[in-house]
C-alpha cells in the first residue's frame, strides 16, 4: 500500500525542463512560429490519432487538430511545465473534441475500423495470428469511448496513471478500473490465444 502511494507521488514529479518539448513550448510562448511547426511535427500524428479515435471521424479530427494548434499558440505562455507537454496537448485536444462533438451533436459511434485484407502467403500461424489481431482490433473499436481512450492514452501515448487521470478528469482508481473493464470486455478475443497455449 505504501509502495503504491509512493509510486504515484514519484510519477507526478515533472520531467527535466531542458527536454526538447519544453524548449519548444517556451519558444512558442515567445512567439516563435517555427517552434510551433516543430511541435506540430512531433506531436501532430499522436494528436490526430487521439482525435480520430475520440470523434470517430477523420475530417472532423483534422479540423479540431488545427483548433488545438491555435490554442497552443495562444496559450503556450500559460503552460508551467508541471506535466509532460504531451499530456498538456492531449488535455487541450480532449477539451476541443468535446466541444466539437457538442456543437455537432454527434452520437458516440464505434470507430469504423476497416480491417485490411488478408494475404494468402506466409505460414499458417502468422495468418491465424493476424486474423486474431484483426478481430481484437474490431472488438476494441466497439469499446465505449472512455475505455478506448484510456487504452490509447496508456499504450499509445505512454502516459502514467496520474497523467491519464488528469486528462480524463477522474481519479487514478477510476483509470485502473476502466483498464480492468476494457480488458474484461476483450477477454473473448484475448482468450483464444490462452486456449491454444493450454
Amino acid at each position, binding site marked *: 500500500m505504501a*509502495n503504491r502511494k509512493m509510486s504515484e507521488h514519484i510519477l507526478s514529479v515533472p520531467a527535466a525542463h531542458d527536454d526538447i518539448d519544453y524548449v519548444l513550448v517556451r519558444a512558442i510562448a515567445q512567439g516563435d512560429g517555427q517552434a510551433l511547426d516543430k511541435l*506540430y511535427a512531433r506531436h501532430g500524428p499522436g494528436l490526430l490519432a487521439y482525435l480520430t479515435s475520440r470523434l470517430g471521424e477523420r475530417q472532423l479530427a483534422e479540423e479540431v487538430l488545427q483548433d488545438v494548434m491555435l490554442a497552443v499558440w495562444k496559450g503556450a505562455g500559460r503552460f508551467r511545465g508541471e506535466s509532460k507537454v504531451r499530456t498538456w496537448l492531449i488535455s487541450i485536444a480532449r477539451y476541443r473534441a468535446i466541444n466539437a462533438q457538442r456543437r455537432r451533436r454527434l452520437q458516440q459511434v464505434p470507430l469504423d475500423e476497416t480491417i485490411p485484407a488478408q494475404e494468402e502467403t506466409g505460414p499458417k500461424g502468422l495468418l491465424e495470428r493476424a486474423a486474431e489481431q484483426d478481430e481484437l482490433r474490431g472488438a476494441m473499436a466497439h469499446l465505449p469511448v472512455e475505455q478506448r481512450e484510456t487504452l490509447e492514452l*496508456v499504450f*499509445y501515448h505512454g502516459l*502514467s496513471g496520474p497523467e491519464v487521470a488528469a486528462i480524463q478528469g477522474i481519479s487514478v482508481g477510476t483509470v485502473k478500473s476502466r483498464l480492468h473493464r*476494457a480488458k474484461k470486455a476483450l477477454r473473448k478475443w484475448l482468450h483464444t490465444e490462452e486456449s491454444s497455449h493450454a
Partner: protein
Amino acid sequence: MHKHWQELLPFYVNGQIAPEDRAALKAHLAGCSECQRALEEWQRVARTTQSAAAERAHELPPLSPVIRAQLQPSPTPRQALAAATRLIWIQRTVILREGFVPALLLVLLLGLLATAGLGEQPPVALPLVGLVPIVAALAVAFLHGPDSDPAHEIVSAAPTNSAVLVFSRMTLVLVLVAGLSALGSVLLSLLGQATLGPLLASWFGPMLLLSALTTILTLLWRPAAAVSISLTLWAGLVALLGRELSGRPLVQVSLQPLLQPRWPLVVGQLVLAGLLWLLGWFILSHEIHTQPQEISLWHSS
C-alpha cells in the same frame, strides 16, 4: 492480493511504472503464472492499440493557412518601425513607374518660378499654398484608383494587410511632395523672399488636410469625383484669398491667416488631418475585408 499486481501490469507494459514497483513486480511475475498470462494479454492489447492508433496518425495535414496567418507575432515598436520604413521605401518603384515624379517636379518648378517672378506683391506663400495641397491630393487620389494595378500584384505577393500597403504608398507620395515643396521653400527663403518657418507651416497643414479629404472621397466614391471636389474646394479657397488680398473680399471671414498661420491654426490643421486619415484608414480596412477572399481557408490535398 493479485489485484494489486494486476493493476500495475498495464504500466509495466508501457514503462510508466515506478522503479521500485517494477522490481517488485518482476520478482512476483517470476513465480506467478496467472499474472504472467495477464501480462501477455496486456501486451497483446498494447500492440493492437498501438497499431490501430498508428494507422490513424498517418498523413498529418499541414498547418492550415489560417493558423499560419495568425502566427505572426506582434512586433516590438522598433521592429514595427523598421518594417514600416522598409515597406514605404519599397513603394518607390510603384511611384516611379507612374511617371509621377517628373510631373510633380514640373509643377513645383512652375510654382517656384511664379513665386519668384511675382516678387513681393502677393504674399510669397500664395502659390505654394495653392499648389502643394492640390498636387498632393491629385497624387493620392490616383494612387488608390481602380486603375492602380500595381497594388494588386504587390498585395498578392506580400503577406501584408492591403490597407497598410495602400497607406504606405500614400505616405511615400506625401513625403515626396512635402520634401520637394520644402526644398523649394528653402530656396525661396535663401533668396530672401520669405522666412522659412512660416512658409513651411503655410502649406504643410493644408497639404495633409486636402489629401486626407481626397483619400476619403476616393474611398467612398471614385478618384475623378474626389479630385473634382477637392480641386473646386481649394481653388475656391485660393480665389477668395486672392480677392481678399487685392482688397475686394467676398466673405466676412478673413482668410489671410492661412498664409502665415500661427501655432494654434497649424496644430488645428494637423489634428483635423490626422482624424481624417484615421477615418480613411478605417474605411479602407473595412473595404478590403468585405471583398471576397480568393484564397481557400482549408488546405485540401
